[in-house]
């Protein structure tokens, strides 16, 4: 465990983690020091002065908490009248030119300026002169919309583009109360992580064109999950809401802190994959191109399986560990050849050295762990002579050209078990809708061999059955995640000592060598 130090806050002894600054160390034990410019991923800048605290050891009367490390025996003063006055004064300064447009501001409800005003200021404005007017709804590129008047000049966005993406599109120009964030003329934001500035902005100055004016922050339920846009497995919040008389809808993904995976950030493409959870979903079961009842569709699948001479099963690299395992058991039970062919999910050369990966699937590492062949040759062998192809969630149209897909389907009847309406579900003899990952729970192994868990986030008005339940209904033995996990633990050596029901928030590292060993 991390080393601890004992110190005094307002005269009371507190034990905090050593080596951190006052804001982080105190924040971890529930003591808030207000701050606008400091962000753990961007370091201390010391420009906002909101975090000034007193330290009774002969230092200057007040020091910025963001730039001060905790030390044994330190006596920190947070509640002295002079500190409260500073906080009030800084708030007053920040609000001099701030348009109080909270009723139409997207940040309202999750705005530091609002929160701090209520907590540390609460005084009426004394301003009698006209505020300085600046530009509004500026298009900064990458779907970031900037409002210069709301900005508090904390420079988090500027530091993000200089320190993290190293693209440096943003700067603070002019000075005094004319200072503002701007892009250089003709050089808008141009990086694949740009929307993180919207999360970083402590106020409503940076907004996302996609999200703005869609929902009030306080209506959103923030459910933890894992992004499935690529094999990195960035930790996210799924922000969703069920409006009156409507269905539960996802409005945005936001990054969720996991130091071991994505830190505080996520990429813009991953952020936008929430749309796939809302739109283009397969909702109604289909038999021979017409809508059918769920029971009828399941019956049609069972009949097709019993009537087939050779069956091939295709599984998606996005399926959870539990799902892949139950599909593997199911395929074995009906003597079907199993393939994980999904070359179309890999976009070679698209990844970078930060978060984005070439592999746009979430769980290919589980294929290695469970010995599932995802080669084209393996797929060709599996499909050769087969008169039935059961496709679990795999968007085969991504990997095969139209004519290749047609020649596969010329001989084999296609059954699609899918959460999304794809080219495959349209061509299938039977299509059975299942819950997507935001409506299901499961485990994923990311590109670095880290096992992570996601839980059910969204509850639809008419919930779809999970993929494991459907697999069970069409003849699979495993009925739920618990049974799958028990089976996984018995079958896979590297998972033997892991409690699959209790995956910690940061996930568990299955080391590369262990995974490779199991595969061999």
């Amino acid at each position, binding site marked *: 465990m991390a080393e601890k130090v004992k110190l005094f806050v307002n005269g009371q002894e507190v034990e905090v983690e050593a080596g951190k600054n006052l804001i982080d160390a105190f924040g971890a034990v529930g003591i808030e020091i207000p701050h606008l410019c400091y962000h753990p991923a961007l370091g201390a800048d010391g420009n906002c002065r909101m975090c000034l605290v007193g330290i009774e050891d002969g230092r200057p009367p007040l020091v910025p908490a963001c730039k001060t490390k905790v030390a044994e025996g330190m006596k920190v003063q947070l509640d002295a009248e002079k500190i409260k006055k500073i906080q009030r004064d800084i708030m007053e300064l920040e609000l001099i030119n701030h348009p109080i447009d909270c009723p139409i501001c997207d940040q309202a409800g999750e705005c530091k300026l609002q929160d701090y005003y209520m907590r540390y200021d609460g005084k009426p404005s004394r301003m009698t002169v006209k505020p300085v007017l*600046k530009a509004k709804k500026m298009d900064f590129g990458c779907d970031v919309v900037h409002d210069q008047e709301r900005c508090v000049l904390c420079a988090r966005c*500027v530091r993000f*583009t*200089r320190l993290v993406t190293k*693209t*440096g*599109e*943003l*700067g*603070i*120009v*002019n*000075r*005094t*109360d*004319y200072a*503002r964030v*701007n*892009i*250089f*003329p*003709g*050089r808008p934001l141009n990086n694949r992580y740009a929307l993180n500035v919207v999360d970083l902005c402590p106020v409503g100055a940076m907004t996302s064109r996609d999200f703005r004016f869609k929902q009030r922050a306080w209506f959103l339920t923030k459910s933890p999950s894992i992004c499935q846009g690529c094999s990195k497995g960035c930790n996210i919040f799924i922000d969703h809401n069920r409006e009156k008389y409507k269905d539960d809808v996802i409005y945005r993904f936001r990054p969720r802190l996991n130091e071991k995976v994505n830190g505080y950030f996520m990429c813009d493409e991953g952020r936008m994959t929430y749309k796939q959870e809302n739109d283009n979903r397969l909702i109604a079961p289909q038999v021979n191109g017409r809508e059918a009842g769920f029971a009828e569709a399941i019956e049609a699948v069972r009949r097709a399986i019993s009537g087939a001479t050779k069956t091939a099963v295709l599984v998606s690299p996005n399926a959870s560990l539990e799902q892949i395992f139950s599909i593997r058991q199911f395929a074995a039970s009906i003597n079907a050849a199993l393939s994980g062919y999904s070359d179309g999910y890999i976009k070679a050369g698209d990844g970078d050295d930060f978060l984005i990966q070439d592999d746009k699937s979430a769980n290919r590492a589980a294929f290695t762990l469970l010995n599932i062949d995802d080669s084209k040759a393996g797929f060709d062998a599996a499909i050769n002579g087969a008169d039935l192809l059961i496709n679990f969630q795999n968007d085969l149209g991504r990997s095969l050209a139209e004519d290749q897909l047609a020649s596969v389907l010329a001989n084999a009847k296609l059954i699609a078990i899918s959460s999304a309406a794809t080219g495959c579900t349209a061509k299938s003899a039977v299509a059975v809708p299942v819950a997507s990952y935001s409506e299901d729970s499961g485990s994923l192994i990311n590109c670095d061999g880290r096992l992570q868990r996601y839980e059910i986030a969204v509850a639809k008005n008419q919930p779809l059955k999970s993929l494991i339940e459907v697999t069970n209904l069409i003849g699979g033995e495993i009925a739920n995640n618990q049974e799958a996990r028990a089976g996984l633990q018995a079958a896979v050596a590297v998972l033997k000592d892991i409690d699959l029901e209790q995956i910690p928030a940061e996930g568990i590292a299955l080391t590369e060598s262990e995974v490779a060993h199991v595969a061999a």
Partner: protein
Amino acid sequence: MSDRSQLIETGKPFAFDAQRDAEFERLVKRYPTRESMILPSLWLVQEQEGWISAEAMAYIADRIGTFPSMVYEAATFYTMYNLQPKGKTHICVCRTLSCYLLGKQEIVDYLKQELGIKPGEVSADGQFSLEEVECLGHCGTAPVVQVNGEFYEDMNVAKLKELLATLK
């Protein structure tokens, strides 16, 4: 202070001339990091062109190997950098304390009337531009007027009249 963030684009690429190019290479060796060359480079542009365009800032950023936004920040922060073309004769009047107390306003009013322009403007024929600036550092001989970089001290309206006659 005012908003200086609206840059002017000439539509033509900028480059240092041979003299400024050599000067840049001489100066760059002085500093521990290349970013330190932002301010001297902006001066070189201003020396060469009289003012600094968006293209010139992009050129500097490229030459130094930094972000254009950083050059933009520095150029808009310091008011001594001209971000728009000036008149052939650029007149600066100091408006800080000593000059203020010793009658800079009379000088400014006289110039406004004679040249027909307000501080911050350029005359229609492009001959004159007028600007009020902060302390020029010659407080002992206030009020001070600066014409194209040259100092004229202990100024008053009569002396200014003579000076203008030589300039027109």
